[in-house]
């Protein structure tokens, strides 16, 4: 049982590292090997940090396993909402700054659009279901 829980937690960390590694590899392919090393180190340190945190906190360990009881799922839901708000605020600020500098705001504007559309669709679907 404990081995299965450990395996799931390790899988959660592995997914984080693979996604981070993919970003680092993409950066290297794009012609920025030093940036790729920095990104790889950042994601590796993040993975180790999350691993250590999950050993101290049952809540974090449960979230890493994509399991958890109703309180842990509520924590996950709120944390997801807060991170979504942070990303949205960052994208809006980025769009404004890029426009003010006379530069192309497309990437930031695209993130804003994806967030806005996803939110609208989610509200529509969730209202119909609940």
């Amino acid at each position, binding site marked *: 049982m404990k081995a299965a829980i450990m395996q799931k937690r390790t899988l959660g960390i592995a997914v984080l590292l693979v996604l981070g590694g993919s970003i680092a590899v993409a950066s290297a392919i794009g012609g920025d090997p030093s940036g790729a090393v920095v990104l790889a180190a950042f994601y590796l340190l993040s993975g180790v940090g999350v691993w250590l945190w999950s050993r101290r906190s*049952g*809540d974090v360990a*449960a979230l890493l396993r994509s399991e*958890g*009881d*109703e*309180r*842990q799922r*509520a924590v996950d839901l709120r944390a997801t909402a807060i991170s979504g708000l942070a990303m949205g605020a960052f994208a809006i600020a980025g769009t404004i700054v890029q426009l003010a500098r006379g530069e192309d705001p497309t990437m930031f504007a695209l993130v804003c659009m994806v967030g806005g559309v996803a939110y609208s669709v989610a509200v529509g679907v969730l209202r119909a279901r609940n």
Partner: protein
Amino acid sequence: MRNRVRELRTSGEHSQGELAAELGVSRQTINAIETGRYLPSLPLALRIGQLFGEPVEDIFELEDGD
């Protein structure tokens, strides 16, 4: 909202871990309910009532301002 979960648990000489296992939640969640940091869902509150053999309204009580 006040609750008597800690009182009922200790009177039955159960640990938080034992109660958590009975209810299928984490020990941290039992602690959060006992200290008032987390309000359980209606199904969980009903299961707590069932486990202690008491109506849920005798375990969870509204306070002024709730």
